[in-house]
């Protein structure tokens, strides 16, 4: 279970560029729950993911993963239990290495690396079997450099690599945003399939309301560094894309309701 309490982060404090990116974030993600974070630009979605991954230390609050307080752990230590897929399909893989070599790196994550044959026969068979589950025909191209693959194929492999060791938490940061619509749909479906099959706990940032409605079990809506709405269980089951868009519109209109508008409305409702 991921448990976040009173998490806060301000960048460039005390300067003209001061930005309060996270304010009093309280969030519980149960084991096996797939949650999506949605929000406007600058709402703190990716910052929250980065805070969980340990990309920076939060100013206040705590992060607990599977009963362990990881708030003070550096990013490299958290990486042993957190899988990540980034927006850029070229970010999570080494372009010059083959598919099999890239996957071997993911297989040995967190283990001591020594001088031995990179891709053993046994490893190759396991890789072939699991790559076959992607249904992209890549199992016959394991020795091809990964840089020769399309963005969608590469992102699918990155997803497979990030989940190879069944992480305690999978973080997906707009991982389909840079793909063409067809590949994005393919990777999104694959994401749901892998998360369900492996019963993973996952946190996905997305700008796609369609994905937010279709893929996860839980939706977290952020605005100006705060969680403003959550759709879990029953509410999530009935939510539609239009409901999410309306919720964003309500937030936008709430921001527009300044003291002058308040005075105008007070005259009407007098």
């Amino acid at each position: 279970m991921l448990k976040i309490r009173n998490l806060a982060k301000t960048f460039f404090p005390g300067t003209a560029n001061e930005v309060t990116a996270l304010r009093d974030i309280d969030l519980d993600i149960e084991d096996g729950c797939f949650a999506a974070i949605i929000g406007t630009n600058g709402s703190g979605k990716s910052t929250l993911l980065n805070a969980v991954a340990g990309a920076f230390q939060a100013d206040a609050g705590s992060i607990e993963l599977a009963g362990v307080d990881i708030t003070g752990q550096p990013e490299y230590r958290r990486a042993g239990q957190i899988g990540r897929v980034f927006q850029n399909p070229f970010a999570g893989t080494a372009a010059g290495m083959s598919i099999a070599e890239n996957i071997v790196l993911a297989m040995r994550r967190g283990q001591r690396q020594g001088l031995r044959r990179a891709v053993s026969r046994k490893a190759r068979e396991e890789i072939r079997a699991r790559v076959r589950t992607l249904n992209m025909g890549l199992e016959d191209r394991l020795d091809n450099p990964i840089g020769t693959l399309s963005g969608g194929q590469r992102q699918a492999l990155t997803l497979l690599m990030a989940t190879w060791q069944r992480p305690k938490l999978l973080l997906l940061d707009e991982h389909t945003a840079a793909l063409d619509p067809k590949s994005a749909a393919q990777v999104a479906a694959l994401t749901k399939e892998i998360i369900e099959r492996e019963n993973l706990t996952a946190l996905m940032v997305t700008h796609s309301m369609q994905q937010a409605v279709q893929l996860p079990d839980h939706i977290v809506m952020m605005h100006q560094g705060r969680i403003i709405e959550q759709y879990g269980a029953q509410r999530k089951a009935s939510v539609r894309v239009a409901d999410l868009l309306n919720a964003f519109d309500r937030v936008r209109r709430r921001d527009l309701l300044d003291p002058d508008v308040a005075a105008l409305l007070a005259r009407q409702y007098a």
Partner: protein
Amino acid sequence: MKISFNPCDHFMEVTVAGRLDATWAEPFLDALRNILRDGQHHIRMDAAALEYLSSAGIRSLLQIHRELTAVDGSFKVQRAVPFVSEALRMSGFGQLLDTEETATGDHGRPLPDAASAQVDIQEGMAIETLLLSPTAKLALRRVGGWQPWQPVAAGCCQEMAFPGSRFALGIGAPGSETDGLRQRLGEFVAAAGCVAYLPGDGFEAPDYLLGAQQFVPKLGLLDALICDGEFSHLLRFGPQQPGACLPLSRLTACAMDQLQTDTMGFLMIAEIDGLVGAALSRSPGLIEADTEAGRFPDIRDWLTFSGERAHSTEQALVVGVACRQPDHPVAQWLPPVPSQAGLHCHAHAAVFPFSPLPQGKIDPQQWVRKLFESGGPKAIMHLLEDDRPALGLGQSAFVRGACWCAALDDKEVTEA
């Protein structure tokens, strides 16, 4: 396919050349729907240069024919080449052909224009006044009389039924206080035995009640203006110049001039140019003694503001009461309209998907019900004029529509 338009006296001539097949059927239908939206309900299609008509093309012809006849309009295919006329006849749709046998000679009634004695042209808008029951007047009742933003006392919501002859606006919700009415109070509009209301639960998902057979919608009312009686006049309005529209205050002023009165109730169905308004986002039934709901910033938790001229090109059902005599008792119940000295107007709008109205005299009962039957309201708003300097959005305005109205009977103005 090439399509061109030639406005004639009482109809629009559409010349179509090339192939009307699956590729072009939808664009063709969209083009003809735009003519319908622009208020022209009689279309003649010149098919002399139409080379080919597929089943998809025939379907689009039938669709526009159906939509035009629904608003008392007409659609005919003229000068069709043998292949096209044969395709229509063989498919059983020969009635679409404008031949000697099928010609009705009916090219529709004229559009309102300056030549008609009943038509008033104001700032690019034609306003046609039609008499219904010239001596009819409306009884107005104010119910509830909630004082914003005071806590709602137990038992102060009054139940009211809304039969077809009654129209109303205000704050209310279905149900009784024992089943959570206080948690759901929000703006409503009632007309023709239909009620659209916005539950004050923060989700801004309008709901509606549609009277049918023995069922008459009922609401518990916190504060409402209720009009009973017949309409005396119908105002039909539409643009004479591209981009023209009619602001709500000008419409009410024009209607009161026609009615020769200073107080009136009105019901309107109109295409929206832009709505400016607000709505309760939280039920006033939840206000407690120490709540400062009417003040900034707490007001953000209780009201939402449109923030822009909203719902352009959609259809509004507007119910309102207006008064231009500031010392009249009714004026005390209505918020002022800043741009019109002395004018007070309280109006609520329910927003629906656009659907065209027939021209001329139409029955409010029938067309209000059609709006509700088309899928229910998308939004409900208390209309207001935003007169903030520089940033103000102005007031709600409408492109074309029908406004039924009547003067209030001063002897029948009551408060309960």
